[in-house]
């Protein structure tokens, strides 16, 4: 993922991507219905949905650019602000909070110098407080990408973040032996 490189630069689809978009659009009776998949594609490709990206999407789908922005602004999972490479989404709803989510968040905050968007200066991490991610039995927990990290302690967090910093492939979450695990896609 390129971070903010598309700001000020011309953004464009590749031929392959355009073909994919056509394929998606063909599934719907109206072309504008392809908006959400195309936005999702754009987020994967460009990292976040900057205004030029939204314009590109609108042009591709054939709607005014304001509509692309309206749709994008509705969904929180579509990022309207630059994010780091790893988005640390720490749950702070009841069960996790009771088990020390705030302590985890404070720990992460003290480790890095987050700006007002919740990004680290090197663009590696983004810290977000999120509501319940349905892993209440194993709180406190956080989600990074599509993986859950559960029963967090500051030491455990240090270990996980050190793994990310070292640039190694995503460390797979260690399954808790006796607990139910749910991964989003894998």
């Amino acid at each position, binding site marked *: 993922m390129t971070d903010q490189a598309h700001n000020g630069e011309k953004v464009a689809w590749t031929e392959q991507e355009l073909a994919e978009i056509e394929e998606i659009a063909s599934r719907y009776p109206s072309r504008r219905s392809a908006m959400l998949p195309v936005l999702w594609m754009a987020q994967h490709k460009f990292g976040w949905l900057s205004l030029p990206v939204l314009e590109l999407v609108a042009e591709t789908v054939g709607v005014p650019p304001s509509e692309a922005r*309206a749709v994008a602004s509705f969904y929180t999972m579509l990022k309207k602000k630059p994010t780091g490479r790893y988005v640390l989404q720490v749950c702070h709803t009841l069960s996790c909070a009771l088990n020390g989510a705030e302590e985890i968040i404070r720990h992460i905050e003290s480790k890095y110098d987050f700006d007002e968007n919740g990004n680290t200066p090197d663009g590696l991490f983004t810290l977000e407080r999120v509501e319940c991610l349905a892993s209440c039995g194993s709180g406190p927990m956080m989600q990074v990408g599509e993986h859950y990290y559960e029963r967090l302690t500051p030491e455990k967090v240090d270990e996980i973040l050190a793994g990310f910093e070292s640039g190694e492939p995503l460390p797979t979450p260690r399954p808790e032996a006796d607990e139910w695990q749910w991964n989003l896609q894998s």
Partner: protein
Amino acid sequence: MPTVKVNGIEVEVAPGTNMIEAARQAGVDIPHYCYHPHLPVAGNCRMCLVDVEAGGRGPDIACNMQARDGLAIRTDTDNVKRMRRSVMEFLLVNHPLDCPICDQAGECRLQDYYMEHGQHHSRLADEKITRTKRQDIGDLIILDADRCIACSRCVRFSDEVTKTGELRLFNRTDHTEIGVFPGTRLSHHYQGCLADICPVGALTNKDFRFQKRSWYLRAEPSVCDRCATGCNIDVDHDHGEVFRYRPRRNDAVNKSWMCDFGRLSYKRLAAEDRILTARGPEGAEGVDAVLAGLAAAVDAAARDHGDGSVGLVLGTRATNEANWAMLRALRAAVPGARVFLVEGNDPDAFDYTDDLLVHADKNPNTAGVRLIAEADGAVGDAEALRAALADGGLRLLLVLADDVLARLGEVRRPEALAFFGTWANATSEAARWVLPLAAAQEVEGSFTNFQGRVQRLQPAIPAAGDSRPGQVLAAGLARALGEDALPAGAAGVFHDLAANVPAFFGLSLAGLGAEGALVHREPPTEQVAPPDTRPAP
């Protein structure tokens, strides 16, 4: 025709009518924000919730309820009042207290319904959510997203009417705000309508901004004179000064819209190039003196060079009455005078045309003058005028309202020219006699738009300076020429017109109504006497 009951009142309405309109026909007003008769139904403000008595279930929104037989609603129950109060509370939760600086104050639906139905004390303990204020999003529009109640009328207007789709609702829940895509601006020429349809003060007219509090203004119905469409307008004025035009609903002509060119044309009423005083060869002398001088010149020309040396150019920008009275006055005094009609646009007309409202013909009364010319039978066109000027037989030419010299281009100028007009132009520059003609919003009379719809004008403000309505100037000229028997006053002139021009048979000025009346496409062969609605002399 389905029959529905509103608060126990039975009313028969056209199929497809929704219950807000049905209730209106029954004399019941259902409060609403997002519903607009000329926009698709969105149903998101919930203000029009009513109790369904029969033919449905539970409370429902009246705007999305189509009239059908057996349907009965009530708007006066305690439940409805409670619902309205709750809806108002939600709408006002994050609404800023901007009324003192908000231009909408006084004509704001939020204020009105709050006073009528609202919960008069706030239960909100938290900080209000604020949104972006004062966004300059168009040539005529300032957007204050903080005041928006997300009724989406403007979104639907830009999607459905102008089809440009610049405006959208962004974000969600209580952070929802209206806006344009960053970096873009409104591009259409109907921006003023956005301020009109906004039920609150989120979209305000930049031109009218802070000029006047709305409750000081009085509205008079009139017709826009900037193109052949003839949009119906309300002239908002205070103490003789016009502050804005607003479109007046006429489903047959302009629905609820008007273009920005027409909207801003109120400035022309007080423009610097208004002709305010009469001017003769000896300078400004007063209208009557100049008319007398002109009449003497007409008499002399007819006597010395024959009737054919006097000519009249009818004005496509003047009212039916002005044209007819001028024609009658000249024909009565100089039976052989030559009359012409020169079509075309003046240089001061705006250069924009679309297929929504703005007509290519920028003259408000071309259709009417054509009908008068047809009825007269002896009216020449631009070519005839050019020829008459070229051979020099036409010595004295009277021009009504239009910038004829500019329309004709390079021609030989007549020896003497008299101009009856509202604004200075090339013809008035060349004219020996200039007489001030009152603007359309200052006179009584009628225009015939491109559809052939005769629409009534009523004076909203007193005529500026010495200017007078065309029929008054014509009557003055007739008197100066020794013809006293011609009808005077707009109603009388129209009566005469309706009795003599076949397309107008049977019409009367007072009988035109708010929506105007169509002229006869196939003029009746038998003369139909117009109803006499003239005021007693």
